[in-house]
């Protein structure tokens, strides 16, 4: 019985790690691919969560409908937010995205119709297919895994298309892109809307898992944690942010159960990665592992270090 409860706990934790992995993917699309540091990506994550919670609670809708409505809402919000934020670059972009999230999160925090500081509680489970709904721990873990994996595959595919190359070009040298006959603004806006959609869809899964949403989902803490996950995992690698999210969600939960001061460990880990591993832990470990595997394969390099 005890192991069963433990299993459910870890399954739920793994599902949550995947959900925040989706948010990390959206941050990586902007930070790692376009070179824009979003400090307010939790805005779209929280928006998706609130929309999905409302749709589930008011309409008793299915998984698919609430996902679709959240996607639509975050695309619209991403378009409006993008038109405002994309005008600025570098630090100004970081701070304007932060400012936007700050405004909306405080508005939600103060709106009684949205439950104010309590948020929305008692969100019913969502039916994915007849016989499987989001309250089934294993089933919903697999559903979340499928959604996040699809987003990951989609992004990987996108990066190899001309669109993805334009984004890389903008990151490398935005001023030269217009000379090639492309309008960087349009590509940046598309990337911003795409990132908002990814964050929104990930957020839409949250109330299905936890049964509630609160304004904290939009707060800087969540945006900041997403950036930490991306940097620790490795910005620009797409897979790194997923690992980073899994590692840090686990760390927060496990270390958090021993001490109230787990933030200090996460903060130190983050500082060390920023200074010593510019490509993140995964970006650092992958070539290392690859070299080891190759060394083991070829007989000449058997005495590897």
């Amino acid at each position: 019985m005890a192991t069963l409860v433990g299993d459910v706990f870890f399954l739920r934790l793994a599902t949550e790690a995947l959900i925040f992995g989706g948010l990390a993917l959206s941050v990586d699309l902007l930070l790692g691919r376009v070179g824009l540091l979003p400090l307010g990506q939790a805005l779209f994550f929280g928006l998706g969560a609130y929309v999905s919670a409302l749709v589930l609670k008011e309409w008793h809708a299915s998984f698919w409908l609430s996902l679709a409505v959240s996607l639509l809402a975050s695309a619209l919000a991403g378009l409006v937010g993008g038109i405002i934020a994309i005008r600025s670059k570098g630090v100004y972009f970081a701070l304007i995205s932060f400012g936007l999230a700050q405004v909306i999160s405080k508005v939600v925090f103060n709106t009684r119709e949205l439950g104010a500081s309590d948020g929305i509680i008692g969100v019913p489970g969502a039916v994915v297919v007849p016989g499987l709904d989001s309250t089934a721990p294993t089933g919903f873990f697999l559903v979340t895994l499928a959604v996040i994996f699809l987003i990951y595959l989609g992004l990987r595919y996108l990066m190899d298309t001309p669109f993805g190359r334009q984004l890389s070009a903008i990151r490398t040298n935005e001023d030269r892109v217009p000379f090639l006959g492309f309008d960087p603004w349009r590509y940046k806006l598309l990337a911003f809307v795409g990132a908002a959609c990814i964050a929104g869809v990930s957020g839409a899964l949250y109330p299905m898992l936890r049964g509630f949403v609160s304004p904290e989902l939009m707060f800087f803490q969540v945006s900041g944690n997403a950036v930490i996950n991306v940097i620790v995992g490795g910005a620009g690698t797409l897979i790194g942010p997923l690992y980073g999210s899994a590692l840090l969600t686990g760390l927060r939960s496990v270390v958090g159960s021993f001490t109230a001061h787990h933030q200090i460990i996460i903060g130190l880990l983050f500082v060390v990665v920023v200074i010593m591993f510019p490509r993140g832990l995964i970006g650092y470990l992958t070539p290392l592992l690859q070299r080891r595997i190759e060394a083991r394969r070829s007989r000449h390099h058997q005495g590897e270090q």
Partner: protein
Amino acid sequence: MTEALEWLQFVLAPQMINGLSIGVAVVLMALGLTIIFGLLDVINMAHGEFYAIGAYLAVALLGLGLSFWWALALTPVLMAVLGYATERGLIQRVFHSKDRHTLTLLLTFGLAIVLEDVLKIIFGANPLRVETPITGGSELFGLFFPNYRLFVMTAGGLLIAAVWMLVFRTSLGAIVRAAAFDRHMSASLGVPVSRVYAATFAFGVALAGLAGVLLAPIYSVFPTMGRDFVLIAFSVVIIGGMGSIKGAVLSGLLLTQVQSISSLFISPVWNDPLLFGIMVMVLMWRPQGLFGKLGHA
């Protein structure tokens, strides 16, 4: 008519003067931020935590039996040492990277998380109080004001003037500005550039610590006190224009007035959305801020 006059005298004026005493402290914070950005090109996300450390240093020094005035004099010195060590030990490691903006922002963000938890471990999570060193009040224009708030306004005003003089009217300030403008040229003229950078960072940190000590008797002291305050300071710096001292002073005083006056008409819970809404609108209209120059960032 008399009703309107009474409203001006007994409702609006006190609110504006209270706003001014907070405004002066906000400007001190924002000055540190904008100097660190304008001269070093570093976004210091840990500025709020340095402010909190300043307040806690006051608590600790008072606990050692020193008077508030000693705490006020010693804290900036100790904060400068801490700031110098931070620049030398951490910031310097990513300072010469191509992505300096992003990396320093991220690094100081991590530092903020660590510092906040360190404060919690040392002092506990509960709010502490600092006794007001100046009690009583004075009558001004027929109104009663706490003396300590009047002191904060005067001292803050003098400090702001002193900072401005230091940066723009002394040879020391000229050296710092030269080192910020062209690192290599200054180095070849014999300016110890990396030490100047560290000292500039230390100076900004000392200003944050000073704001912390000055506000400690007005608010209670708690580990996350820097978080909300730095957000205001950041919006002040952004609206004023990153790196602009004039912008930080003007927009700091203006924004805190907007905050305290709007509190009379709408609930104070809408202060933050209002503030950040103004910030976003200013950035949309003038991305470099009111007094900023594009070129940075």
